[in-house]
């Protein structure tokens, strides 16, 4: 489980690639297309911001959306990537 104080970042060996218009997340065994909210979340994962900061920032951007929902979706997304060793926290 990701904690409010966790500071997620791309794991070692993961980086951005592809083109400006078509960013891809590259990692040892493959690549992943990331768009929309997923992209917004990952761009905030700089190892400085805490998970709480990220959720607040997302809430600010997607004004009017349900804060609880944002938190749950972001947590699920990051936990999945953590298991694949794409995101560390």
């Amino acid at each position, binding site marked *: 489980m990701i904690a409010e104080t966790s500071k997620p970042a791309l794991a070692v060996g993961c980086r951005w*690639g592809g083109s400006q218009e078509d960013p891809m997340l590259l990692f040892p065994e493959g690549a992943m297309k990331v768009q929309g909210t997923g992209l917004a979340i990952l761009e905030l994962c700089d190892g400085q911001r805490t998970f709480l900061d990220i959720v607040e920032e997302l809430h600010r951007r997607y004004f009017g959306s349900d804060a609880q929902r944002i938190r749950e979706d972001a947590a699920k997304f990051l936990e999945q990537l*953590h298991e694949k060793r794409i995101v560390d926290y």
Partner: protein
Amino acid sequence: MLANPLALIAEITHRCPLHCVYCSNPLELAAASSELKTEDWRCVFAEAAKMGILHLHLTGGEPLARTDLEELIASAHQARLYTNLITSGVGLSRERLARLVQAGLDHIQLSFQDSHPDRADWIAGTKSHAHKVELAGWIREHRIAFTANLVVHRQNLDDLEATLKFLETLRPDRIEIAHTQYYGWALENRAALMPTAAQLEKALAVVAAAEVRLKGSVRIDSVVPDYHAQFPKACMGGWGRRLMLINPAGQALPCHAAGVIPGLVFDNVKERSLQSIWNESAAFQKFRSESWMQEPCRTCERRTEDFGGCRCQAFLLAGDAAATDPVCSLSPRHDSVLRTVCQAPEDIVSPGSPAKSWKYRPNPGRG
């Protein structure tokens, strides 16, 4: 429409200080003098990136045997390719490793043969184990991904549990357990390498337990050997569909073993652009559509998933590159494959008493 490949495998040399009995390099190794020059590779990498290729796998032989490896990595990095170095680590100093990382290396895949130094050296035909262990420590001083790779076969499968525990101590991000693929030198040594069914069953359980134990810390990738599976794997993601391999001399192949299939002509990157080779080269076209398929593949539902299995294996085991891959349980030749599997003798040979059939992979000539 034909999609461009996602990854490029660059076999930059066939030279290698090791002599692994499971090596999948072709029996006819490319001579050092025929190797592509630094500049040729630079063009290949730039073109690959332009085609949308994302990953570059630098392999061999032993890629470190190229003194221009730093430059090759730098040019791939400049082209924005994700670079992966597949290496035995032999001869890699702490300083050179730092230079490779500096040049833009993203991922290093270091091969291990066993957890016992003497057994490992026996399989590799060279003293190399102790150095690999030291190197693993140096790798962790850098921010690059680290995969520990283990090729398994009858001679080391019984130790799998201990070997995994040993690999864990090296703190890799990933552990890759690759069952020997029977091409090239491995095929020559098949009688001594083919695991028994009992070994495989046990190995599956060991891997499953390790996956649970290491969840979230080490990712385990394991490829089940297809001699024992019910259906073949989609070799290389299908012939000419996902990957492109360039051999040391610059020939473009749909897979590393494709050279065994008689009659295939491989275009050279020195003469044609990568894109036109991908689109039009006869060797890539040969098994791309479904028109070459025979029964039972031709009408089988799984043909869009596994594309009839591996063409090289079909040739090596059935004598016909267009046949259904004989490892498939639906293949009329499947029995002959099963016989090989069942005939795998129970004996485990040991470093003291080398198997009669052991055939170490030599080094290519200077040409």
